[in-house]
């Protein structure tokens, strides 16, 4: 029995029914990894340790929620004794002495970490073209990008290699690749999941989350990923519900907000058609649509491209060739060490953002840029607060279109930055949001975004699950479509 494209729920049931042993499951996973190396979804594999953990589970079975389930981890999470590169030459030799809280939480729930997935360098990118370890291909077409920055995780799930993977989302890095690869991805409320051990890009926006084939699997993953972590002071001390418990509850009477300011007329007709069909489907499930206004939403992208680079310019200062990671050969003096290490260690997109960030924080510019951006951020948050007085969730397309071909936006960073038009607002406001597959455009999947109020992940997952039990977009497989 093939394990490809199976969900967590299905694999758990196979393991429980002894249809497959833990070791067989892991070995089959690695054979899928190897028959899909052209995707370049993984940077580092964890094969020996993974097989050993599976053997241990076969000897001493445990029945935790993720026992024996193969999971791929984005290479931005520190994994003890397993190389963690963040997609960068700078960390191409970095083996962390500790694991991220998310990794510990998932592994403590029994999961088996298969390997570390490819990603845009330091999570900066929307096409997985900025990785030092090469582009990731979209399983839906070798010429297509998988989206980014969690492109390797999205591709690994979309190709059915693993049922789920971890991702991180600073401006859309879970939802955009989920949309482009036809899978489900959730960015939780800021602070739901500990950032301890996540290599920081923009600390006030970064949030880890699950990527899987279904909303239900995302809920199972989220149950284990969340914790109140004393090692992260921005981690929320809030009750963590069982995110699976309300999934099937009817959404009759649900109020869904449509953002007046999102101008869909600029999108392809096919994209708009898919979106309108999803609205009709939700209406058939008993939901009502309400137009809402987010007056400051047009400022999201510029605000994001001030705040995120500013924080990144500071967060990436520690990569200086002194203590860990790459160091240039034969530095002549301290300045030479810094300049060459960072020139050689970082790629163009990372350098671009460090430059932008250093500029907006400079003396004399701080008030005009960074401080102003933080004020606008507050306004955007207020807009959402007002909107959520009228609606339960807010709906939009996740992306402006389906997967594009590699290199098609390479020379124009602004075009690439606009990829995150619909996803960025949720990061700025710290709100939970997810993307589910809701249709096909030119035989390529595309996603629907749902944004929830603070801590309302259960509501989002319920709304998504209701869609998935009555549609089959999430069941589409790239091999079937292509063959």
């Amino acid at each position, binding site marked *: 029995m093939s394990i490809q494209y199976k969900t967590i729920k299905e694999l758990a049931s196979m393991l429980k029914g002894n249809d497959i042993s833990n070791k067989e499951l892991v070995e089959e996973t690695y054979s899928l990894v190897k028959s899909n190396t052209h995707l370049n979804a993984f940077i580092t594999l964890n094969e020996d340790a993974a097989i050993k953990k599976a053997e241990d589970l076969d000897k001493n079975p445990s029945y935790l929620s993720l026992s024996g389930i193969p999971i791929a981890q984005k290479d931005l999470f520190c994994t003890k004794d397993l190389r963690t590169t963040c997609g960068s030459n700078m960390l191409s030799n970095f083996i962390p002495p500790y694991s*991220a809280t998310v990794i510990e939480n998932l592994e403590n729930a029994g999961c088996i970490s298969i390997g570390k997935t490819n990603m845009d360098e330091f999570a900066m990118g929307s096409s997985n073209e900025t990785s030092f370890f090469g582009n990731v291909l979209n399983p839906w077409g070798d010429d297509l990008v998988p989206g980014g920055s969690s492109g390797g995780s999205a591709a690994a799930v979309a190709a059915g290699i693993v049922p789920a993977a971890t991702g991180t989302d600073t401006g859309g890095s879970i939802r955009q690749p989920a949309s482009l690869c036809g899978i489900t991805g959730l960015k939780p409320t800021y602070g739901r999941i500990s950032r301890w051990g996540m290599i920081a890009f923009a600390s*006030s926006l970064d949030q880890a989350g699950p990527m899987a084939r279904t909303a239900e699997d995302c809920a199972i993953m989220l149950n284990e990923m969340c914790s109140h972590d004393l090692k992260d*002071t921005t981690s929320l001390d809030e009750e963590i519900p069982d995110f699976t418990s309300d999934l099937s509850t009817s959404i009759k009477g649900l109020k869904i907000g449509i953002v007046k300011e999102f101008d869909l007329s600029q999108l392809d007709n096919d994209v708009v058609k898919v979106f309108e069909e999803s609205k009709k489907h939700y209406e058939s499930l008993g939901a009502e649509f309400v137009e809402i206004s987010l007056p400051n939403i047009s400022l999201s992208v510029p605000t994001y491209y001030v705040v995120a680079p500013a*924080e990144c310019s*500071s967060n990436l*200062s520690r*990569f*200086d060739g002194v203590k*860990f990671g790459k160091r240039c050969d034969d530095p002549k003096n301290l300045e030479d060490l810094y300049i060459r290490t960072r020139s050689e260690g970082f790629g163009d997109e990372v350098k671009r953002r460090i430059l932008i960030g250093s500029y907006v924080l400079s003396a004399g510019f*701080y008030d005009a840029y960074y401080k102003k951006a933080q004020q606008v951020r507050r306004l955007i948050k207020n807009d959402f607060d007002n909107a959520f007085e009228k609606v339960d969730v807010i709906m939009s397309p996740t992306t402006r279109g389906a997967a594009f071909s590699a290199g098609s936006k390479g020379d124009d960073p602004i075009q690439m930055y606009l990829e995150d038009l619909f996803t960025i607002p949720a990061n700025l406001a710290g709100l939970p949001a997810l993307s589910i597959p809701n249709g096909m455009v030119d035989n390529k999947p595309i996603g629907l975004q749902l944004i929830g109020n603070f801590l309302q992940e259960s509501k989002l997952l319920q709304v998504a699950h209701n869609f998935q039990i009555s549609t089959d977009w999430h069941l589409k497989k790239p091999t079937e479509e292509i063959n």
Partner: protein
Amino acid sequence: MSWETVIGLEIHVQLSTESKLFSGGSTGFGAEPNTHVDLIDMGLPGVLPVANRDAFYKAIRFGLATNAEINQTSSFDRKNYFYPDLPKGYQITQMAIPIVGKGSIKILVEGAEKIINITRAHLEEDAGKSIHDLFEGETGVDLNRAGTPLLEIVSEPEISNAKEAVAYFKAVKQLVTFLDICDGIMAQGSMRCDVNVSMKKTEDKELGTRAEIKNLNSFKFIEKAINFETERQIRIIESGESVVQETRLYDSIKNETRSMRSKEEANDYRYFPCPDLLPVVITDEELNEIKENLPELPEQKERRYISEANLEESEAKIISSSKTMANMFEEACLKTDDSKLVANWLVGDISALLNKDNIDIDESKLTSNNFGTLIERISDKTISGKIAKSVLEEVWESGNNVDDIIEDKGLVQIQDESLLESIASKIIEDNPGQVNAYKGGKDKLFGFFVGQVMKETQGKANPQSVNEILKKLLD
């Protein structure tokens, strides 16, 4: 033309917390390089800081003792610059909202009091150390100190000369040691300061261009650096040139300050709020608890020594001037009923020894415990006051234990009255001439007999007993 010197100090006080400002790493001094360093101190990818509340409590004590505003909500900012001993490429500090706002402190300069206003006192993490002289052609980095909590106390530019600056520094040192928030050991870098110096004409309202002298860590260097810098700036201005705004280093060997970097070369620190740390909120309960448990301060101690221990004001002032001396006094008073005796030793012999060596009581080899024993042995008549002086001198040189010295040298006072009587009788027998003269009215000769007994007993005789016995035998 008359010039006024305008001085402001930024004093960095290492807070005596068990662990670092943002990690569980130890703050202990003197460990092997890079052994007191955890993941956070090293700035590894993915680590996050967690603020140490005890550092806030200690900072608040300082704020309360200087009648300062306490910001119950304060926040952290990042100060970005590259240096090998700064692991993250930024220092976490309190730029926008410091824990302690405006306050003031009283200083004493040549007997006159002056109030120096304090602008602010904020928490920040210390950097590590770069070691340039240990490896040929290479620099070593020791991160043990990285992340140690510092309280940076910034004064208003209200200090007028080197003596006042030293008095201010001493007042801050006295306060932080009494508050038990810093060990005050300057040789270990527990207190360091940056001094801003500028000159203005007496009638001018605007301040002149200032130079900042970095990282001075002794009273002597502060005084010398300011005096040098004052003369340098006056010379420049009077020759028609202008002082350049810059950072300077003091070279203690050549006794001069040298330019380190000019304003143009100064870093743009790109300060911004640290997104990893939420603002720290101190509750009213916490603040009240700190207020109620504030340690006794020098002035309170002085008043108590006068009222409870019957000390003279001058004695009480000297004893309460340093935490160490006050501790010595209080501990020794537990060993005797005679607090005057304790005070006499501290204000007399010990102060004289300190003056002679020109050192601070913290720098002497006399421990509080040893001093207590010395007082106890005088009090229980094991040794006489005169012997005690010689014991003290030995302790001062060697730091050895008082009881060991008494035993090793056989200094125990002779209390045995029959033994003393037989010694005295023999001396009277051997000196008939002096006896006759004494009896003939030469009272002063009594001292001669006392001296002889002391000589015979190598000074160990209990002087009071000797007096009584001689009086009985001679009168």
